[in-house]
């Protein structure tokens, strides 16, 4: 017993070092479960607040670019206004409405909310974006996030006033997307190398692909169909496989995000519930 105490006394520093390493490594490798823990949310309120202040300064440097992109988006949206598509017969005029039912009896499925970006990383292997809109403002886990020009990512955790978004530039990010021309569906992921390119896998070789083709969202419980993910940059030939691997240029510029939109699918729960129930039957 005495020898044990002597041993501990002698190697106290080393044992302390080992203890701290074990704590740090277990935090790191259990991160995905861990980051839902409550005190991470508390830390996020803190760091989010500090990032917000820093971003207020940085915001001024991007005002011109932000204005440009907002003006472009406004123009695009004006073109989509329903009043532009008025028919000759006034009886078929469509009216936009904010209540769940529009005049045609369609149920609203997607609700868009804008959010200010308060922190953004694009240079590491697992990139997250912090936005200044949280549970109190209606953001929940698993909502889709887009920028004025394309898809950004998915909400992974929320606190009262902030939320973190797993960017497409994250090694665990997976998203279904299809070719706009022919409709073949594959999976968009990121290999962790260059933030300028994404990878689209599982496109069957029967598909006809040209460089510059658009890739858009398809079956998804988070995004409306038809939003641009990126454009085909390169086709990686692999003779041994039945599938193409495509290099995509993302539509979103991840380096200067200032405003994003959080998309809520109002019918998501119903869809998920049905799919879960179907899985149980099998």
């Amino acid at each position, binding site marked *: 017993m005495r020898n044990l105490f002597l041993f501990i006394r002698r190697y*106290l*520093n*080393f044992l*302390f*070092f080992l203890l*701290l*390493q074990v*704590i*740090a*490594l*277990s*935090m*790191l*490798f259990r*991160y995905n479960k*861990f*980051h839902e823990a409550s005190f*991470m949310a508390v*830390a*996020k309120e*803190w*760091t989010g607040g*500090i*990032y917000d202040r*820093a971003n207020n300064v*940085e915001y001024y440097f991007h005002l011109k670019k932000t204005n440009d992109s907002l003006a472009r988006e406004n123009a695009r949206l004006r073109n989509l206004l329903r009043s532009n598509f008025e028919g000759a017969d006034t009886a078929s005029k469509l009216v936009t409405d904010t209540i769940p039912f529009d005049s045609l009896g369609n149920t609203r499925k997607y609700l868009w909310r804008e959010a200010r970006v308060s922190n953004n*990383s*694009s*240079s*590491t*292997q*697992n990139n*997250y974006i912090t936005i200044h809109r949280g549970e109190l403002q209606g953001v929940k886990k698993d909502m889709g996030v887009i920028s004025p020009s394309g898809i950004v990512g998915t909400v992974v955790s929320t606190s009262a006033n902030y939320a*973190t978004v797993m960017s497409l530039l994250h*090694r665990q990010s997976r998203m279904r997307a299809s070719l706009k021309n022919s409709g073949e569906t594959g999976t968009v992921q990121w290999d*962790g*190398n*260059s*933030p300028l390119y994404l990878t689209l896998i599982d496109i069957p070789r029967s598909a006809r692909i040209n460089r510059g083709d658009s890739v858009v969202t398809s079956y998804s419980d988070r995004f409306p169909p038809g939003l641009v993910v990126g454009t085909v940059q390169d086709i990686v030939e692999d003779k041994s496989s039945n599938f193409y691997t495509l290099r995509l240029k993302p539509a979103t510029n991840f*380096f200067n995000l200032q405003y994003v939109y959080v998309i809520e699918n109002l019918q998501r729960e119903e869809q998920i519930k049905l799919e879960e129930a179907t899985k149980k039957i099998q």
Partner: protein
Amino acid sequence: MSDLVKHSFRFLFFILLQALVLQRIPFLHKFITPYLYFLFIIWLPFNTKRGWLLLVAFVFGLTLDYFLNTPGLHAAACTLIAYIRPFLVNLLISQQGAEQNYASPSIRSMGWAPYFTLVLILTLMHHTYLVFLEWIQIGSFWYFIMKVLASTGISLLLILLSEMLFVRKEKFRTNTA
């Protein structure tokens, strides 16, 4: 200014510098992440108890982790260099009794060559461990080596610059005073 206040300021300064400035520098190359924050650990006083050194480094790394959304990553690397530092200082210090006469490691207290050997070894260890943990799932060896070397180069450059720009006044202390 007392040591505690001085080092608390440095703690905050280095965290904010790393999280708000260095991590946001526009993407240079996939191999390069400019790290400077661990200079805080190198600059801690000689007479810090080793247990405290470890604890301070752990808390320091964890604070940065909360900013960068990587719980445990930087904390692990920081505790490693904090554990190694006393051994290296004992090996490298040339002047007799410099640990007593000067407050903390610097060019003045250790001399150019030993100080930069200390910085070089600690930077290399820090980056190797950090990139190793980051890439343990991927295992592209070439990427690993290149990233360690490139980031070490950038960090050394930053450390050299900050040593030249901000000269720390290291007073010679005697036992009698």
